[in-house]
């Protein structure tokens, strides 16, 4: 009886047969960046705790934060933070019922990608 209303209903988007689109990819990346930000957030909290503990412990945390790996995590986190913020803004706009047309959704997808890269460069240069 599950097929009773088959008709013109859209098929479920099984990932394996679903053509990758800008809208779906940017949405998946939103989830990825949001959850990956835990790494950078924990590093910042650890750095703050080290600063509050004393100069010796701070030297250790600061050494890690300014090491190649630490800088890589920082750079990735800055981009992830901007990407997730812009993509989140896009979701808030969608939730409010705007920008749901195909062209507008695609345009906002490119804006999120381009904007996050620009803001990351901007942040790294200015701060």
């Amino acid at each position, binding site marked *: 009886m599950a097929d009773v209303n088959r008709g013109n209903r859209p098929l479920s988007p099984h990932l394996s047969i679903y053509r990758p689109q800008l809208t779906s990819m940017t949405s998946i990346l939103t989830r990825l960046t*949001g*959850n990956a930000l835990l790494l950078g*957030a924990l590093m*910042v909290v650890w750095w703050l705790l080290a*600063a*509050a503990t004393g*100069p010796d412990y701070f030297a250790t945390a600061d050494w890690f*934060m300014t090491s190649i790996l630490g800088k890589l995590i920082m750079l990735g986190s800055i981009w992830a*933070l901007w990407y997730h913020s812009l993509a989140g803004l896009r979701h*808030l706009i969608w939730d409010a019922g705007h920008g749901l047309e195909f062209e507008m959704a695609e345009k906002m997808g490119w804006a999120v990608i381009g904007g996050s890269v620009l803001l990351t460069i901007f942040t790294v240069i200015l701060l």
Partner: protein
Amino acid sequence: MAYVTDRKRAVGLGSAKTGTEHHWHMQISSYALLLLVPLFLIAFGPMVGESHANVVAHFARPFPAIVTALMIIVGFQHFRSGVQVLIEDYSHGLTRKLLIIAMVCVSYGAMATGLFALVKLAL
């Protein structure tokens, strides 16, 4: 004659049962973070690579301390709710429960640690 309204007949029949409040809280924290993220980058960014004395002096000032504290509170609250959706989408049963409990502990643990550090730096 049935006195039950159409809405009343539909309530509770969805597969999810709950979630409206969860989504609403995600929206509230999202709006807050749109403002907090740029402020946090301004407050925190310049301190990376600075000397210990400079860092202590910086976070003793009201603006960096308050903005960083708000970022830690709202950010980890938002993460706690967001990661729960991730876990619920991909895992089931006991694994799901344990993962959610673990991430709740990580979120509030990190939040408390960050706030303790800030208070100690600021006072």
